[in-house]
């Protein structure tokens, strides 16, 4: 929305006394964000109103050689417009001026240059070049008796264009979104009222909702459902010149252009003007067409919900199919307009129009919002209607339109089934100050509210807790509860004037969230100790990805309005997303690396939570280049850091379809699925090297997390013994069995009462060697490191231990010492 500061200053004289930047700052901090400040005086710098002294056709061209009268005497300009002629007043952009149409973009600067051999100084401008409209058919013509914007005097040749037309102005580009609840501010009057309030002065304006307007019964209005159309007012006016447009540039053209609209015709300009001033959109029908469509002798206006599939050709020639949320204006039930959005072709005003019906109504913002979405109509009018224009002003604005248009009024009609009563809210000085944390006194509060049209009735008692009865003006559709009034006081007096404070709280530590704590710990281990890279990938994946990894897309919650097929299904696990990134980074030249992500997953087959919302689980997925053992080393390191010891790897339980069952495993405490990615899956990703992964549910992990009792590592003050042994075993012997057999050997001595005492042992695998692919045996080597807590081990004792090892491995797995 664009707001002219000059217009605001006209409506609020006090605004002229405030520095422009200060005024903008105040509007920004107390009403709405100002996105941009556009200085028109720069845009129209070096543009002048000039009299064309002579205009001679240049032979064999469409050009005219013109002499114009400037402040510094006659100047020559070549002009290509067909309407240039001696004696007319035009707008001259002098050399050095930037063509306003290009201002702020390419900033095209005019110069003295030669055209067909004739020197041309700047240019005579058309409406489009002045950025005041689209017309390019000729140059703008100025009324020779045009007065200055302030009405002071008539123009003379050479006067500044900007000064005459009030273009030395600042336009504010306003962020509409935060005014969604304030339909009144979508009109200049409403906006200005706020500015007055901000400046602490009472807003005074002639526009009143109280004026008595006589209505008749010559036009029948029937509203089928007052929820769809709370009020419908209209007037029948005799008007033969509805479509005329001024020959000369007018203040109206300028006014509309400042708001980003264009001058079109007398009637359209008037309705647009009033909409910009009051926020109330108006629409005009051709009276005779309206009556004839309905087949009656006089208008029968019926406002009703559309039927499904009902058709209507709109003014832009498009034929729309309505749905039941649309509201239609009908003539005796034949649709003539899509309410709030656009008029119908069948009642369009044309050159033969002699009477019009001018409509001023208000509709359900909810229905119009659906209309807007369904038919893609985003006009200035519907933007206002979808904020919920107050019903109170339809008739008063209609009355303003009648006065402006000056035609002969035949009839005014008004249907207002359930007149809206003003909102009355009880609040107190205490309530205001205790919510805001302020110390505003009663007179300040009262004046602040009254400045913008509230009525404040004060109980006689001077007690601050005593009631203030606040009556909201009828245009304030957003005031319902005391907090709404408190907001007004806080905002108009300036939130920035509220002194900051801190809540009191007892010195009780905030509760730590176990899951967040775990996540933080995992990130520290994975990134800092295991050198993995943390990723974030989208929560939505494609069906194709799910199919590629063997997940069932039908078990995923599917987004019905997704941006692309790539982002359609809520993911069931995170590993597939990481595989995609694995591929991308391998392609980018990275070789040995690991990726991980911690994020939420779910699927339809999981149950809903207590709020009947899908249960979401937080997963950690870790994907690395390399085989199972590469991943396993990382997993063990990670789990050890978390305090899990003695992990047992069991046969894979098949939880994730993309892990290769014979090269994957499952651990029990905690439950982790880990393994190599199936080669068929990798092929689909065009990855031709082994990739391994594990994925853990943190919600489960957290339940299994060992008590974080810090344990002193087992150490002995006696020297330790180191022995290397290599065992020859059958190829299919499980490593875990060999290891267990060795460990068991030490248990024999492992008690405090024994002669040797408790042993501290460290069994470290050194190598697993197989001579050839099909060999029946393999050699497994260990480095053993052990010490007694009680004494220095003697050679005989060491020998006895090693013999025990030999005996045990032979017994358990048939191993021979090599």
């Amino acid at each position, binding site marked *: 929305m664009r707001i002219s500061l000059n217009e605001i200053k006209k409506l609020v004289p006090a605004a002229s006394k405030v520095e422009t930047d200060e005024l903008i700052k105040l509007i*920004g*901090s107390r009403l*709405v964000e100002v996105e941009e400040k556009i200085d028109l005086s720069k845009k129209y710098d070096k543009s002048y109103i000039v009299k064309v002294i002579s205009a001679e056709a240049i032979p064999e061209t469409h050009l005219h050689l013109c002499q114009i009268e400037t402040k510094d005497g006659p100047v020559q300009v070549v002009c290509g417009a067909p309407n240039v002629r001696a004696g007319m007043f035009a707008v001259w952009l002098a050399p050095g001026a930037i063509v306003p149409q290009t201002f702020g973009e390419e900033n095209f600067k005019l110069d003295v240059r030669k055209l067909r051999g004739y020197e041309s100084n700047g240019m005579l401008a058309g409406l489009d070049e002045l950025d005041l409209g689209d017309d390019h058919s000729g140059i703008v013509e100025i009324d020779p008796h045009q007065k200055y914007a302030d009405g002071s005097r008539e123009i003379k040749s050479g006067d500044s264009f900007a000064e005459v037309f009030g273009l030395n102005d600042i336009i504010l580009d306003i962020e509409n*979104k*935060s005014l*969604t*609840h*304030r339909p009144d501010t979508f009109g200049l009057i409403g906006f200005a009222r706020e500015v007055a309030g901000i400046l602490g002065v009472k807003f005074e304006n002639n526009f009143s909702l109280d004026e008595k307007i006589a209505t008749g019964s010559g036009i029948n209005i029937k509203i089928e459902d007052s929820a769809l159309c709370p009020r419908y007012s209209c007037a029948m006016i005799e008007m033969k010149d509805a479509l005329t447009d001024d020959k000369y540039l007018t203040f109206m053209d300028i006014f509309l252009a400042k708001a980003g609209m264009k001058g079109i015709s007398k009637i359209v300009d008037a309705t647009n003007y009033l909409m910009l001033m009051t926020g109330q959109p108006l629409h005009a029908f051709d009276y005779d067409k309206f009556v004839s469509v309905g087949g009656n002798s006089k208008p029968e206006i019926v406002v009703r919900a559309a039927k499904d599939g009902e058709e209507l050709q709109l003014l832009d020639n498009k034929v729309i199919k309505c749905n039941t949320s649309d509201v239609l204006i009908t003539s005796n039930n034949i649709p003539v307009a899509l309410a709030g959005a656009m008029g119908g072709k069948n009642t369009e005003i044309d050159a033969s129009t002699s009477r019009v019906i001018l409509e001023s109504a208000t509709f359900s913002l*909810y229905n119009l*919002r*659906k209309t807007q979405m369904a038919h893609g109509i985003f006009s200035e009018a519907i933007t206002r209607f*979808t904020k919920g224009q107050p019903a109170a002003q339809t008739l008063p604005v209609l009355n303003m339109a009648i006065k402006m248009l000056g035609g002969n009024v035949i009839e005014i009609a008004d249907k207002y089934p359930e007149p809206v009563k003003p909102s009355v809210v009880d609040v107190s000085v205490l309530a205001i100050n*205790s*919510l805001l*944390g302020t110390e505003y006194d009663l007179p300040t509060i009262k004046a602040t509210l009254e400045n913008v049209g509230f009525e404040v009735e004060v109980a006689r008692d001077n007690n601050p807790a005593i009631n203030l009865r606040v009556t909201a003006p009828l245009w304030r559709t957003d005031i319902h*509860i005391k907090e709404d009034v*408190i*907001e007004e006081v*806080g905002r108009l007096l300036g*939130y*920035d004037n*509220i*002194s*900051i404070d*801190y*809540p009191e709280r007892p010195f009780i*530590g*905030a*509760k*730590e*969230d176990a899951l*967040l704590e775990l996540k*933080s710990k995992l990130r520290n281990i994975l*990134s*800092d100790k295991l*050198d993995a*890279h*943390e*990723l*974030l*990938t*989208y*929560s*939505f994946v494609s069906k194709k990805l799910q199919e590629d990894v063997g997940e069932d897309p039908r078990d995923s*919650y*599917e*987004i*019905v*309005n997704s*941006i692309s097929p790539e982002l359609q299904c*809520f993911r069931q696990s995170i590993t597939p997303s990481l595989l*995609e990134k694995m591929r991308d980074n391998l392609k980018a030249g990275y070789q040995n690396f*690991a990726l991980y992500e*911690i994020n*939420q997953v*779910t699927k339809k087959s999981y149950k809903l939570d207590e*709020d009947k*919302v*899908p249960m979401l689980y*937080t997963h950690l997925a870790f994907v690395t280049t390399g085989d199972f053992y590469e991943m396993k080393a990382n997993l063990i390191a990670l789990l050890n850091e978390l305090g899990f010891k003695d992990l047992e790897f069991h046969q894979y339980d098949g939880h994730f379809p993309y892990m290769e069952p014979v090269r994957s495993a499952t651990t029990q405490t905690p439950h982790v699925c880990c393994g190599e990615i199936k080669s068929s899956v990798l092929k689909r990703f065009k990855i031709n090297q082994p990739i391994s992964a594990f994925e853990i549910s943190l919600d489960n992990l957290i339940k299994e997390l060992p008590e974080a009792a810090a344990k002193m590592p087992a150490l002995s003050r006696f020297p330790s013994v180191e022995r290397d042994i290599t065992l020859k075993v059958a190829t299919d012997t499980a490593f875990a069995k060999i290891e267990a057999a060795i460990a068991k050997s030490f248990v024999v001595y492992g008690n405090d009462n024994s002669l040797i005492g408790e042993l501290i042992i460290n069994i470290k695998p050194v190598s697993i060697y197989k001579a050839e692919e099909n060999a029946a045996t393999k050699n497994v080597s260990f480095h053993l490191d052990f010490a007694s807590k009680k004494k220095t081990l003697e050679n005989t004792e060491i020998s006895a231990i090693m013999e025990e090892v030999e005996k045990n491995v032979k017994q358990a797995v048939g191993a021979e010492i090599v």
Partner: protein
Amino acid sequence: MSKIEEIKGKIKALNAEYAKIKTIAPEERKAFGIELNKKREALQKELQEALDAEESGSVTPIDITAPAAENAQIPEIKKGSKHPLMTELERVLDIYSHMGFNIMEAQQLDDEFHMFESLNFPEGHPARDGYDTFRTAEGYIPPAHTSTMQHRALKRYKKDLENGGKIAVVIPGRVFRNEDVDATHEHTFYQCEGIFVSEGTTFGQMLGVLKNFFETYYGQNLNIKTQPGYFPFTEPSIELLIEKPKSLGGKGDGWLEMLGCGMIHPNVLKMAGIDPTKYKGFAWGGGIDRLVMLKYGLTDVRYFESGKLDFLKEF
């Protein structure tokens, strides 16, 4: 004679000079001593340098600008990385946690009730349009803001309030908007929500808490300013701006829009079973992505979810 021995000789000779001190007039003795000490210090320094040079002479010098010695393998340091968004989020939560806020994570699928109804959005209200929500076939909504969690947080901690305490919770989460991705727009991003409810909560306290958060976060005193805003779930509602911090190149002139906040709407409290005539609260919500982008001067938000190691390994 080597240089070292030559210097040693000189030191010896100098030491002999000290004996002369007795022959000098008492008033000149001090000056004489200082002079000798100076000379000896200089000689000792010279000696040390000569000794160092002799040692280095027997060692092969290296090219300190090379990554490795000739014929040696270039050492490779393997280094993991943490996602900057998660790191920043941890820092944000840390500060709020120190201020006494509990933490509760947001969920990535929610429903219409938590997204709109519980937040006082009337059904069919145009304000719902502002959020461009995704929807699943079942009508679930990947939340478009972390405010979705307000209702749950209010309910969960209501007991604390009734026991004479306060509700103080921050809620981080991943949120989603149905919009096309470009350098400044992502359909997936992170927010942090906060709520505080007690008997005496004021608007001024909200300004204080949030100002203090940013001052802690940026490690300096900051001016703040406000802009009226509109959210159906707070009343009054504002946008909070902070002065551009020095660490981001601020010179006390620019402003940064950091978050939306306001006093919790009585209807929102009521819906969670909290008596709005007794308790008042404030709530806020702001983006995490923006904090990170500002901090590192990132101009393209798409890096965050790109999974590109070229980008991530720098963090």
